[in-house]
C-alpha cells in the first residue's frame, strides 16, 4: 500500500478552462480521504487524474514514491469504482471480479480463490454466475467493489459510487464501504457531492470548489473550524447562518451587533481568536450554526445578554427537533455555490435582512407569526473577513 501525493496538480483543457488549479494534497497510506464539492468543481477530474484516465497538465502525482504522471492506468496499481459501476454486461459476476486478475495472468486457481474470497466478503457468493443485469442496484455496487478489492491494489478510487442507489441503500452501503476500507486498509480516495457521505465515511475530508482546494481536515474539524465561508456554508445541515455583523467593544465587554440587535460575546471568544481584535468596529461576517439558537423559554437560565427577539416565519417540526426560521435585520451573506448543493437549500434573501434557521428543542411551542425571544450561544460564533471570506481566528 502507498499514499498518494499531488503537488501543484493542474488540469487545463484545450479551451483554457482550468478544471483543477494547483492542487496540493497528501493522502496518507491507508487513509480514507473523501473529496467533496459541487458539480463541476473538479473533484472527479482529480480522481480521474489519479486513475490516469485524464492527463495532468501541470504538477506532480506520486503513488507511494513513484512519479506516475505518464504511467498508464493499468500500471498504476489502482482500482476504481465508477459512478455507474461500469460492470461488463456480457460477463458473469465472477468474470467481472476476476477480469483484472485474468489480464494479469494470475493462475486459474488463484483467481478462483481470490474471487471467492471477495464474494464472501461482499456476500455475493450466490450471485457469482449471474450477469450484472440480473442484480439489484446494491448488488451491482458490491460487484464493483469486489472488482476493486480483488486486485489488492495500492489505492482505491471511488467516483460517487453511491449516487445511483436509493436513500436507504445508500446509508447501508456507506457503512459497508467504510467497514470494508477499514478491514482491507487500502488508501482510498472517494469523491462525492454529498456532505453526509463525506462526513460519515472519511478520515479526512477535502473540500474543493471551482478547481481550488478549500480545506482538508477531519470531519469534525471541518465542522468546528471552517477555514472560509465556502466550507462554513457547505458543511452542516441546515447550513451555517451567515450574516454581516460588527464586533463592538465597550468598557472591556464585547458584543456582536447583528442588525439592530446586539448579543454579548464572552471574553473567551476574543482570547481564542486573537485576530478578531483587529476587526473590532469593522463589518465582518458572523456565522452561527442553527444548533446555537434555542427557544429562550426552554433555557430559562441563559444569560440575558445572549438573547435576541425575532419574528418566527416558519416552523418545521421533525419530531426530534424543530427547525425554526426567523428573520433578522442583519444583511445575509449567501454562498450560492455552496447553497446549491444543499438538499434543504433555501436561498431566500430577505430585503436587506437575513432568514435564519435555528434548531429548537421539540418541546418548544413557538409558532409561525409569533414574536419570540431566542437564546444564542454566542461563544460558538464563527467569524470571517467580509472581503476575502477567510476565517478570523489567530
Amino acid at each position, binding site marked *: 500500500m502507498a499514499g498518494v501525493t499531488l503537488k501543484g496538480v493542474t488540469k487545463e483543457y484545450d479551451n483554457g478552462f482550468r478544471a483543477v488549479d494547483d492542487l496540493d494534497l497528501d493522502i496518507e497510506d491507508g487513509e480514507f480521504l473523501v473529496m467533496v464539492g459541487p458539480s463541476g468543481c473538479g473533484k472527479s477530474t482529480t480522481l480521474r487524474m489519479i*486513475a*490516469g*484516465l485524464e492527463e495532468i497538465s501541470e504538477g506532480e502525482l506520486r503513488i507511494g514514491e513513484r512519479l506516475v504522471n505518464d504511467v*498508464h*492506468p*493499468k500500471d498504476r496499481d*489502482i*482500482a*476504481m469504482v*465508477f*459512478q*455507474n459501476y*461500469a460492470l*461488463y*454486461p*456480457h460477463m458473469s459476476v465472477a468474470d467481472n471480479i476476476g*477480469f*483484472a486478475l485474468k*489480464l*494479469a495472468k494470475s493462475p486459474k486457481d488463484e483467481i478462483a480463490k481470490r474471487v471467492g474470497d471477495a464474494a464472501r466478503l461482499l456476500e455475493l457468493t450466490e450471485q457469482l454466475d449471474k450477469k450484472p443485469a440480473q442484480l439489484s442496484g446494491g448488488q451491482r455496487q458490491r460487484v464493483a467493489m469486489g*472488482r476493486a478489492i480483488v*486486485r489488492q491494489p495500492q489505492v482505491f478510487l471511488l467516483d460517487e459510487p453511491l449516487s445511483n442507489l436509493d436513500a436507504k441503500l445508500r446509508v447501508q452501503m456507506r457503512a459497508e464501504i467504510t467497514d470494508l476500507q477499514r478491514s482491507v486498509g487500502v488508501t482510498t480516495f472517494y469523491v462525492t457531492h454529498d456532505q453526509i457521505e463525506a462526513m460519515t465515511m472519511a478520515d479526512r475530508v477535502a473540500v474543493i470548489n471551482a478547481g481550488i482546494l478549500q480545506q482538508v481536515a477531519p470531519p469534525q474539524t471541518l465542522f468546528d473550524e471552517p477555514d472560509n465561508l465556502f466550507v462554513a456554508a457547505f458543511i452542516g445541515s441546515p447550513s451555517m447562518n451567515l450574516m454581516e455583523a460588527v464586533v463592538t467593544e465597550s468598557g472591556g465587554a464585547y458584543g456582536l451587533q447583528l442588525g439592530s440587535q446586539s448579543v454579548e460575546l464572552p471574553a473567551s471568544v476574543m482570547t481564542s481568536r486573537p485576530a478578531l481584535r483587529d476587526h473590532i468596529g469593522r463589518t465582518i461576517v458572523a456565522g452561527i450554526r442553527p444548533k446555537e439558537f434555542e427557544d429562550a423559554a426552554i433555557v430559562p437560565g441563559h444569560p440575558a445578554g445572549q438573547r435576541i427577539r425575532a419574528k418566527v416565519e416558519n416552523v418545521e417540526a421533525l419530531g426530534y427537533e424543530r427547525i425554526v426560521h426567523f428573520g433578522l435585520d442583519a444583511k445575509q451573506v449567501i454562498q450560492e455555490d455552496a447553497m446549491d448543493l444543499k438538499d434543504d437549500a433555501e436561498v431566500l434573501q430577505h430585503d436587506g435582512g437575513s432568514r435564519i434557521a435555528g434548531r429548537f428543542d421539540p418541546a418548544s411551542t413557538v409558532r409561525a407569526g409569533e414574536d419570540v425571544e431566542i437564546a444564542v450561544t454566542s461563544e460558538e460564533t464563527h467569524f470571517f473577513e467580509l472581503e476575502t471570506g477567510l476565517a478570523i481566528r489567530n
Partner: protein
Amino acid sequence: MATSLTTRQQDTVEADPEWMVKARRRTLLLKLGTTALTAGLLAIFLMPMAYAFVTSVKTSEQASDPEAPILPSSPATFEFEGKEYDVLSVPIDGEVRKLAIVDPGRQESEFVDPDNPEAGTIVWEGNWRQLDPVRNSDWAWGNYKDAWDFINFPRMLFWTLLYAFVTLVGSVSASAVVAYGFARFRFPGRSVLFIVLVGTIILPPAVVLIPTYAFFTTIGWTGTWLPLIVPLMFGNAYNVFLLRQYFLTIPREMEQAASVDGAGPFRAFIQIILPQAVPALTAVSLFHFFFAWNDFFNPLIYLAGNRDIVPISVGLSFFNGTYQQNPNLIMAAAFIVLVIPLTIFFFSQRIFLSGIVVSGADK
C-alpha cells in the same frame, strides 16, 4: 385486506359491465381490424413468392398451360383393359361421379367407374365435351432436383459462400475497427474524414463503376475474384456508420474500467466492446451477407468470361437464359437460392431486428 380488495374489484367488474363491455368490444374490433389489414398487406407482399413457389412445383406442361388451375395438378386418368382413359366429373342421378370415359359420343358416352370397373360401362346422355375433367394434385418436386443437377449448384454455391463469408469477415472486422476509431479516438481531421466516408454512401454506384473497372482491368484483376473481395476488406461506409453509432451508445467507462483493470485499447475493444456490440455486428453481418449473396452486377462484370467461378446470382441469370421455356425450373432454382439466406434470417431474426433498432432509428 388484500382479499377484500380483490373481492371489491370483482364486484366492480360485475357491477358496471356496460361501459367495460363496450370498451372491450372496441379494443377487440381495433385488434381485428389491424390484424386483417396486416394480413392483407402481407398477402400482397407474399403473392409473387407464392406464385413462384407454386410454379416451381408444376410440370412444364402445367406451367405453360394458361388454363391450368393455380395449384399444381394434372388430369386424372384410369387404365382400363390396357388403355388410359380420362376421368371426368359426370352428373348422374343428382350426384356428381368421377368416371373414366371409354367411349365418347356426341349424344351419349360410355363410362367406367374407376372404383368398380367390374360393374361394366355406364351410359350417360349428353355432350361429354361439356364435362369437366377431374384433376389430381400433382406436385412436381422433381423440379428441384432437376434444377440442382442442371446448373451445378454445388460449385456455384461454393463460390457464393466463399465470396459472402470471406468478405463478411473482412468487411465487418475492418468496419468495426474503423467505426471504433471514429467513435472513441480523437485525431486531427476526424470529423472531416467521417463526413467524407459517409458521403461515399450517397455516391451513385454508376459514377464509380467505369473508373474502378478501368483500374482493375489495368492491373489485370478482371476475370478473377480479387476486384470483388479486396475492396471489401477495407470496410464499408454504411457498416462503419452503423457500428460507430452503436459504439457511441456504449459508456466510455467500460473502456476506462478495462484500462484500470489492465487492458490496453486493443484488448478493451476485443474483450469488452465487441461482445457488447453483438446485436449491431449481427445486423451488419447479415446485411453484408445478403448483399454478397444477391450481388449480381459486380460478379457479372468482373468475372466476365469465366463461367467456372460465377456465383449463384450470375449463374441463375445464365440458367434463366437457357431455360426460358421452363419457368417451373427457373422458379425451383430461384427457391433453392433463396433457402440459405432465408434460413439464416429466420434463425437470427431477433438479434437482427434489435441490431437495426439500436444502431438505427432508436438512438
